[in-house]
């Protein structure tokens, strides 16, 4: 009962819902199991816990989704996060997984992000990919000798679980970088006593990205987060490998007109980044 009560959405003024799901006054319901004291009613004691639940999860949500906050604005984001947490309360012992179903929810409830639903979806996917890149599993990287010793028609390469390939309609990477820069500058400026009034005016909302087909890999290198832009042909090769294609089929997926020297250069770069592993495809978590 208590768990159900405290995860119900708060009212507009951050209070406990006045009625229980069966219509009974919440004051009466709370009094059935919580003792009042000389300062707080049972309702008020339960309300404390409910507020803490919502404030804690909302804060975690904001911390993980600064791009989405910037794109939707505070009010729309608050509506989205409230609806999302009501539909998909946390099923993990760690808040790290809080946004794992956010993209799916945005697609389920497009009105909450309209008219920017397509953009919001891609930002949610991107921001989740960051979480995966930050602490996702790392498997032993494939050695260069394996590439040269196995026929390409039989060689299968997995992608590291912490690498997420994204084919996007918007340049989300550029947008997220701009948001992070703005937030960092805002944070610095707000530490100056006289600057508080200036902060909002100077650091305006980050311009929303315009549509432009973008292929990017969200990954980590030396345990630092990176976004790597990919040529569409390079993306097709990596995507084919991720889906379990042999090396020769994956390279064929690049399409006509791609020079072998270009493919060689791409593979050299990806090998240096340690992206390939032996069986990552069996164990990686899908980020999209």
């Amino acid at each position, binding site marked *: 009962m208590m768990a159900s009560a405290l995860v119900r959405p708060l009212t507009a003024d951050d209070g406990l819902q006045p009625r229980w799901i069966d219509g009974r006054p919440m004051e009466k319901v709370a009094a059935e199991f*919580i003792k009042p004291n000389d*300062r707080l009613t*049972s309702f008020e004691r339960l309300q404390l*816990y409910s507020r803490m639940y919502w404030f804690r999860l909302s804060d975690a949500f904001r911390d993980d989704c600064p791009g989405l906050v910037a794109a939707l604005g505070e009010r729309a984001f608050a509506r989205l996060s409230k609806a999302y947490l009501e539909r998909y309360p946390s099923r993990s*012992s760690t808040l790290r997984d809080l946004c794992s179903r956010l993209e799916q929810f945005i697609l389920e409830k497009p009105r909450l992000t309209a008219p920017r639903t397509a953009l919001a979806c891609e930002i949610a996917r991107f921001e989740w990919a960051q979480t995966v890149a930050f602490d996702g599993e790392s498997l032993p990287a494939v050695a260069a000798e394996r590439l040269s010793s196995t026929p390409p028609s039989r060689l299968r390469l997995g992608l590291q679980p*912490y690498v997420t390939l994204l084919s996007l309609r918007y340049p989300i990477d550029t947008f997220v970088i701009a948001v992070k820069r703005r937030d960092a500058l805002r944070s610095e400026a707000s530490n100056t006593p006289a600057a508080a009034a200036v902060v909002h005016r100077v650091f305006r909302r980050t311009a929303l990205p315009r549509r432009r087909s973008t292929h990017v890999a969200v990954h980590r290198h030396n345990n630092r987060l990176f976004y790597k832009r990919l040529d569409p042909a390079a993306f097709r090769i990596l995507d084919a490998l991720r889906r379990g294609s042999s090396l020769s089929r994956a390279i064929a997926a690049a399409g006509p007109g791609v020079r072998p020297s270009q493919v060689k250069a791409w593979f050299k770069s990806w090998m240096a980044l340690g992206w390939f592993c032996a069986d990552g495809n069996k164990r990686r978590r899908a980020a999209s």
Partner: protein
Amino acid sequence: MAGRVFSYVPANRFNGHSDYGIGIGLRVPHYAHILSKKPVVDWFEIISENFMVDGGRPLELLDKILEQYRVVQHGVSMYFGSADKPDRAHLKRLRTLVRRTKTPWLSDHLCWGSVDGTYTHDLLPMPYTFAAARRTAEKIRQIRDFVEVPICVENVSSYAEFHVSEMTEWEFLTEVVELADCGILLDVNNIYVSSKNHAFNPYDYLNNIPHHRVGQMHVAGHTKFEKYILDTHDHPVLDPVWKLYAHATRMCGVSATLLEWDDKIPSFDEVHNEALKANEFIDGAKKAAV
């Protein structure tokens, strides 16, 4: 307690017979300072869940800390008091981390916080009933058998009490730890906060728990509101809490002590110096024992 011998060393079977003194929490704002300046700190407490990950920077950072420092794990989501069975995947990750850190003991809270696989990410107060005590103790035993290190159970701060409770909080804590044969992480700030919210004498709490089971203590700051006190961990330790700590040390003996400072975190030196204030109370307790 008649005939009880004051313990001048913190080691007992509930903290793996370790001799850990005063520690602080390992917190993100201090990482750069710790790694570059390598300050002398007796031990760090880490939140287990922050490092129960598959890879990346958290584990890189942890391994660097482990090269130089002793670390003890403190959890926030085991939910000993939840009716849910222990999550095996969570336990496996926890045990992997225990083996990595070589923590001499593991702590988590006497609370519940999950129902049917949905997590509140809060430390919710227990109903103090004999049935709840039995169920909680059994869960602690199962978890201890799996992770293979001693467990200390922490008393939480609370803002609600239940009509169904059959005993006081300290009686419930005693019942649980005796049935589970586990240790206590005695959080004196939580005792103070709860004593104000529920109008009981905090010294009654301290005087009536099994002192020999205390493997570790916590001190922390809190925030007073008009009608309640909130356990915010964002201030220095207030005098009434230090007084409770002094009394707890006289009753339990010298114990591994940790200062919790989790929000509005000041510089490393400020936090560490605050923690080291515990020494004067430990010295006082030793003198009183002579």
